């Protein structure tokens, strides 16, 4: 009990004094996850919209696969990426293993299916609603995609935030391809795992608090987005 209490105090002190180890870890985490979400959106928005409006044989299969990949276990994603990036793997010569870049790729692999699947769903619903109107204006298929994406913007941001939440909380993939190397590839989740097993609870707790706050912040952002979308009658 005593130990737990002092760990809490220590965690508070680390947070309030912007302890350099802690801030370094938080910033790397944000850098990795934000980059991954950015890549996920870059791929997921257009790809999801394409799946929503295009009709071609095999489309359903792709949709099912994308949806299934939403639940891809992070450790499995990490393992596959490890095999690709390891020295003897096909991408070995790039020497990306145990770098932040590898972690960004790993999280992008996790985020992209989420953003793609949510985009497809949202844009497909919107397309059904807009289809006849758009066709009457001479707006067909792929040419309608930018209009659809823009009108789906509130839901798309929500999707991106969901992806961010998943990536930020994930530990398996970044641990495998990042290696949790001090000052190089240590992010919040991997540090928490390591420090807890070592008995160094204060840093783990401090980072845990940051993660929880982040999650609260994301959910608050989603709620307020929803609120403003409703206020603007965009729902």
């Amino acid at each position, binding site marked *: 009990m005593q130990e737990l209490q002092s760990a809490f105090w220590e965690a508070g002190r680390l947070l309030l004094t912007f302890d350099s180890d802690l801030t370094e870890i938080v910033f790397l985490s944000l850098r990795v996850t934000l980059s991954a979400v950015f890549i996920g959106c870059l791929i997921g928005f257009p790809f999801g919209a394409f799946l929503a409006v295009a009709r071609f044989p095999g489309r359903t299969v792709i949709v099912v696969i994308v949806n299934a990949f939403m639940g891809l276990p992070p450790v499995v994603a990490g393992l596959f990426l490890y095999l690709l990036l390891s020295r003897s793997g096909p991408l070995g010569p790039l020497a990306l293993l145990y770098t932040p870049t590898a972690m960004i790729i790993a999280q992008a692999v996790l985020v992209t299916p989420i953003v793609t699947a949510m985009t497809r769903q949202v844009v497909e619903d919107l397309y059904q*609603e*807009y289809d*006849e*109107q758009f*066709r*009457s*204006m*001479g*707006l*067909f298929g792929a040419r309608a995609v930018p*209009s659809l994406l*823009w*009108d789906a913007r509130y839901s798309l941001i929500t999707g991106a935030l969901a992806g961010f939440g998943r990536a930020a909380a994930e530990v398996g993939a970044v641990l495998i391809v990042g290696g949790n190397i001090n000052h190089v590839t240590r992010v919040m989740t991997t540090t928490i795992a390591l420090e807890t097993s070592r008995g160094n609870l204060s840093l783990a707790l401090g980072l845990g608090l940051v993660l929880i706050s982040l999650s609260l912040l994301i959910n608050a952002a989603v709620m307020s987005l929803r609120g403003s979308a409703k206020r*603007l*009658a*965009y729902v």
Partner: protein
Amino acid sequence: MSTQQGFAGIGQSDRTAPTPLLPVSLENVCFGVNGADLLHDVSLTIGPGNRTVIMGPNGAGKSLLLRLMQGLISPTRGKLTWRRDWNSRQGTQGGTPGSATGGMPSGAPPVSIVLQRPVLLRRSVAANLTHALRVLRVPRAERAARLEELLTLGNLQDRRDQPARSLSGGEQQRLATVRALAASPEMLLLDEPTASLDPQATHAIEGLIQSSHERGTKIVMVTHDMGQAKRIADEVVFVSQGRIAEFTPAETFFTQPQSEEARAYLSGQLVI
């Protein structure tokens, strides 16, 4: 050339007159879904100039008729022929740029529709109109001026930044109507544009319809509002159970309807 000036009210003497869009003829057109025919053997020729009003009970097939003409659905059997062929993917074929109100790129569909339930985009009033102009490939430099024109036409200047979907029913209908006019169509199809609007809002929409008519746009409108039909119609198409029951000049229709169905409808009876 002079034979091609039949299109009501266009002064395009300084330009090579394009082939007129109209008349459009439907020959034994059937439209069915899952084997059930919703429109049976519709034969009808709609010419330029006159304001055509389509009437008939709910479920008669009025909206289907408009959607056929707009090219949103295709006949299951039968033929729909325009004097000047066009399709909504390619816009006008063979017509030179410029239409009833001039200046549209030839990619714009020559026919515009205000759907029974118009879909407004999740954007501001102005952005809805700008979007339509962009889709019509109106050059960027001209968009601002066109936008102002349309906002003024719809009396929506004060609402320009309001989210379109938060407009009142009447305002939404005005926006949908001026959006359809953004293409400067040669033919405007309106599906119950004033259903559930108050008299003043109805008057505003009728004003838009009237001014388009005066600029030479062919008007085809579906309505259940008898007063409105009398105010607007030059000729009436009466649809009943997926068939054209009659197609007569307005005076004849309202004083001596030729078909049993129209007589019953006009006298307020149930048309079964």
